[in-house]
Structures are given as structure tokens and as C-alpha cells.
């Protein structure tokens, strides 16, 4: 493998990991506070659709992104209401939301674009950061990415600082590990848990917009194709930590990038095996490499005062 090809591989690994990373960090924060959102998939799809329609209708991808973010708010509020107020089974309600969003976006897509599809949709711009972007070969291939990724990395760094150094971070952690203590301290567990679901929805909306108007500049029916579930797997793989989750996402991104890289190198591996690889890795990850004891104590359990 030449350096040039390797740089391209690295660049596409990061590009493919980006939506998983954005959604995965949001989900990690939510799971730390004890709420599992199987609906990450649906939230991403909702935003992928809404931001594509927004960008297409207004001609401005930035407006599209905003519409994508706003479109997920009702979805995440619905999930938060089901999980926290109605104390519904978080897995079942999440899957229900995914089915609903898949149906609704497909229906709306057909109504707006018709069955022909492939309308030209304006996308978010790529940027090359100074210094890093100026490195020969590697600079353009690896670091020239859609600006949303850099914005997302900024948000992730802030998230890491908030989790580590602020009382809010402590409250989030405690809401998942020891909700009774949070209650006794006078904070509302329900409020914290509503907040984290909305945050997970916000991050998933960035991830969805990245897929449609960031990466391929179009929307296809059901285009998330399990990316939300991979994001959840990356949280488990990463042991509910930011660094671990990030590495897991990069690994899944690299596994996906191999699909395009290996045939270019003349390596003859069945395409289906390569498409399957991230899911296979995720299964191995959740199946063997991490133990249960790492999960937040009350993950998936509704809190009852």
C-alpha cells in the first residue's frame, strides 16, 4: 500500500466514522444517565431526511442543517416521554420510533420527490484546517473534511470537559449510577434524563445531517441502514467512555472504508463480507471483549421516585 492510498484510506475511515462518532457520543452521555435510546437510528434518519429536504427547498445547506436539528426535537421528546414519564420498555419504544420514522420519511420522500428521486441537493462545504491541512499528501486526503465534523469534535471536547469537571457531569453520571442519591440531593432525575435524551437526539441529528447533506449530498430511503445500532455498539465497545467510544467508531469506520479500498488494491474479497465486517466486529466487541459490569448501574431502567 502506497502512502497516498493509505492517506485516502485514513481519510475515508474518518469520514465514515464521523456519523457514528457524533451519534455515539450523544448516546454515551444518555446511557451514562441511565437511558438507552434504541431510537438513535430513527433520529438519524429523521434528520438525514429533514436536512436534505431543507437544503433542497431553500438551496442553503446551513438552513437544511438547522431544519434537521429541529426535526429531531419532537422525536427525542417522544422518546424521553416514553422512557421517563410513561416508564415504557426503552428497547421496544425505541424500535417503535425507528419503524415510525422509517415509514414516515419514506412516505414523505415519495410525496415530495416522487419515485424517481436523486434530486440535486446542495451539501455542506469541506474545509482544510490550517497547518494539518497543509501537510503534503496527507493534508488534503485526511484532514479535508466537512466542517460539521470539526464542529462535532469541538462539541465532543466540550462534552468531555462538562462530564469530567462540572456538577452537571456529576449529576449525569449519578443519574445512571445512583439515581436515588440524585433525588435526595434535590435534583430531579427525570429532568436530567429528559435532558440527556434531547442531547442524544441533537447529536444524532448532526450525524443524520452528516450522512445526507455532508457526505453524499442526497437522501435515499432508509439510508441509515443500521448506523444508529452501530453507534450503540460503539458505546458498549468503548466501555461508556469518550476515548473508547471514539476508537470504536474509528474502527467501524475503517472496516467500512475497506469496502472501497481493498478492491482498489486488487485484493479479491467478497463485497458482502466487507459490508458485513463492521457488524461482525461490533458483535465480537459486544460479545467478548467487554464485561457487563462496565455498564451504568441503572441503564435501561426507568426511575421511580
Amino acid at each position, binding site marked *: 500500500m502506497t502512502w497516498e492510498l493509505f492517506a485516502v484510506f485514513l481519510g475515508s475511515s474518518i469520514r465514515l466514522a464521523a456519523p457514528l462518532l457524533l451519534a455515539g457520543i450523544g448516546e454515551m452521555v444518555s446511557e451514562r444517565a441511565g437511558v438507552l435510546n434504541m431510537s438513535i437510528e430513527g433520529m438519524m434518519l429523521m434528520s438525514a431526511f429533514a436536512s436534505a429536504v431543507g437544503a433542497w427547498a431553500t438551496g442553503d445547506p446551513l438552513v437544511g442543517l438547522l431544519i434537521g436539528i429541529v426535526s429531531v426535537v419532537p422525536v427525542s421528546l417522544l422518546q424521553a416521554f416514553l422512557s421517563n414519564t410513561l416508564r415504557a420498555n426503552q*428497547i421496544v419504544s425505541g424500535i*417503535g420510533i425507528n419503524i415510525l420514522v422509517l415509514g414516515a420519511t419514506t412516505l414523505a420522500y415519495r410525496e415530495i420527490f416522487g419515485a424517481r428521486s436523486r434530486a440535486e441537493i446542495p451539501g455542506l462545504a469541506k474545509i482544510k484546517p490550517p497547518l494539518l491541512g497543509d501537510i503534503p499528501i496527507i493534508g488534503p486526503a485526511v484532514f479535508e473534511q466537512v466542517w460539521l465534523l470539526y464542529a462535532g469534535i469541538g462539541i465532543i471536547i466540550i462534552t468531555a470537559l462538562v462530564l469530567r469537571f462540572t456538577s452537571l457531569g456529576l449529576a449525569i453520571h449519578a443519574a445512571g449510577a445512583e439515581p436515588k442519591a440524585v433525588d435526595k440531593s434535590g435534583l430531579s432525575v427525570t429532568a436530567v434524563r429528559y435532558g440527556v435524551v434531547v442531547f442524544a437526539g441533537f447529536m444524532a441529528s448532526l450525524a443524520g445531517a452528516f450522512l445526507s447533506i455532508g457526505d453524499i449530498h442526497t437522501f435515499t430511503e432508509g439510508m441509515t441502514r443500521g448506523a444508529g445500532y452501530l453507534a450503540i455498539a460503539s458505546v458498549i465497545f468503548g466501555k461508556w467512555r469518550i476515548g473508547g467510544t471514539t476508537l470504536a467508531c474509528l474502527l467501524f469506520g475503517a472496516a467500512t472504508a475497506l469496502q472501497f479500498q481493498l478492491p482498489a488494491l486488487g485484493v479479491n474479497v467478497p463485497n*458482502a463480507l466487507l459490508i458485513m465486517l463492521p457488524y461482525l466486529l461490533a458483535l465480537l466487541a*459486544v460479545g467478548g471483549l467487554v464485561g457487563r459490569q462496565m455498564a451504568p448501574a441503572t441503564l435501561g431502567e426507568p426511575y421511580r421516585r
Partner: protein
Amino acid sequence: MTTLDQQNSLDRGPRFTLRPSLFVPIAAVAFAAAVGLALIAAIGVSVPDAIEAFVDGTIGSPYALAASLNRACVFALVGFGFVLANRANLTNVGGEGQIAVGGIAATAVALYGHVADLPLGLAFILPMLAAVIAGALWGALAAVLKVKSGTNEVISTLLLSFIGVWLLYWCVQSPALLRKPMTSSATLPESLEIPDATQLPLLTGDYGFPVHIGLPLTLLIALVVGVLLAKTIFGVRLRAVGLNPVAAHRAGISYAKTVIVALAGAGALGGLAGALMLLGEQHTLKDGFSSGYGFDGLVAGLLSRGSIPGVIAASLLFGFMRSGGINMEMVAAVPTALVVVIQGLIVITLAGAALFIEKWERRT
């Protein structure tokens, strides 16, 4: 409060009880259907036209009726599997992958297992058995991960679904596996058609009403699973492990064995569902074979709240909804995605109402 309670005790006759576990699902379906009708009106299609197309597609002809019933069998089998595993507090969302591996196994044996000349129906029974075994192994894989490393079965069965679906894609793409011999570059990525003898016999022998023997088989399995859960020690073990694994262990019930048997059983039923689809209707294996039926079956299982007759009712409903939805798209230009919206609403409503149902049933 007291008047409501009195009202309740009056309603609670010995023969007929209007339990929330019965009327809440009905209310959820009615609510979702109402939203569906409103959506049809919203996209500018005449509602009576759409309803007519829907009814035509479900019971309008013997052929449509048969297609709906065959589909309902597939949903019901996956749904029974869901209920079986759920009795042990396990959530099997892997129906889609189990259908896929069942379809692969059935195709492989039907085409290359030299079974076509066997007597006594073995020509189609052996491919079915292969599908059952493949599905059971697929389900058992998730169970082993759960027992060995505590992996949540929801995540593992879901990931196994993706893997199963791509495995099927691989099988029909690769000439070394199940793809039919490539005579030109235009050869479709699908298997050969399975021999006539390996296809499931039709109940009436009439191609105008092609209900196959999957229907009586499904009813038989409904009976077996129902009896197994309600009347046998196996059913008690499942329930014990589901309610309290520690107490079950003290009582000498093996957690590992119960989990593996429950998920393998659910997988076996999913594999059989795949066999019915392939041997009964499609006859060639193609990409996209499982067509979301695994999720429909899952929803049927959820809707039933653990009751086998409930699974049958929900499966019939979804069988008819799918057929009607397809006809609505062809005749009245209503996208089939509408049916998906309705299903999503049903699941969300029921998930949200679970607390209400539990409270109500504890009170009465």
C-alpha cells in the same frame, strides 16, 4: 374512585371480561388506522378509493386472500418465537436474520441436497428441517454470548440480523455459493428455482387459491407452543428464569440451558418462517428476501402481550395490512410506507400504555 371500582366489578363477569390487555391493543390499532386514513387524505388520495383498493388486496380475490394468509403464517411463526423467548424475559429482535439463514439453508438443501426424488414429502421436509436447524443455531449464538459474557440479546440478535441479511446477499452474489450459473453478465444475482418436488404442496391444489401447507403447520405449532408454555414444566422453567434468575437457580433450574433453549427455539421458528417463504412462495432466493417480515413478526409478538391467540390475531392483521398496502400502492398510488407508519404507531402506543395496563390489572 369507588364508583369506578364498582363499575369495574360489575363489568367483571365470570364469562366475559373486557381486560385492558385486550382493549388497549384494539384501541392502539384503531388509533393507528385513523392516523393512516388521515394521512391518505393528506396526500390527496380519495379515502374511499384507497379503502376499496385495500379491501380488494386483502379479500378481493381468492388469490389475494391466500397471499395474505401465507404471509400471516410467516409473521405468526416469528411472533411465537418472540413470545417463547419473552417468557424467559428475553427479547429476540433477530427474526429478520433468522428468516434469512433459514432461507439460505432451505435453498441450499432444496437445490443441492439431492432431495427432489425422495418419497413421503421428504423433498420439502428436509429443506424445512435444515432451515429450522440453521435458525436455531443463529438464535443459540446470541444465547451463548449472553450466557458467556452477559451480552444483551437485543443488541446481539439485532447485529446478527444485519449479518444474516448480508450473508444472504453474499450467497446470491457469489457463483461459488448459491448464485445460479452465470451464462452472461446479465445473469441476475439470485439462485436457481428450486425443483417442483421441493416446493410446499398447496392445500387445495388450486393455483387460484395458493394457500400452502404452511397454514396447518403454523396452527399445529401454535398449539404445541401454547401447550408448552402453559402446561409443561418447560414453560414453568422459562417463566421462573424470566421472573427471577437467582431464585430459579436456587430451585435447580439451569439459567444457561434455559436461555439457550429459549433463544434457539425462537431462532428455529424464525428459520422455519424463512423456509415457508422460500419453499412456499418465492421459490428462488434473491437479495432482500426477508423483506422486513422479521420485524413484522416481532411487532405481532409484542402486540400479543404473550398470548398465542394474540399472535395469531396480530399476524392476520399484518398479513392483510401488507397485502392491502401493496394493492393500495398499485391501484390507488398510496405508498406502502403508510403501512409501516401505522405499525410504528401501534408499537409506540402499546409500549407507552404498558404501565397503564399493568397498573390496571394489578388493581382488578
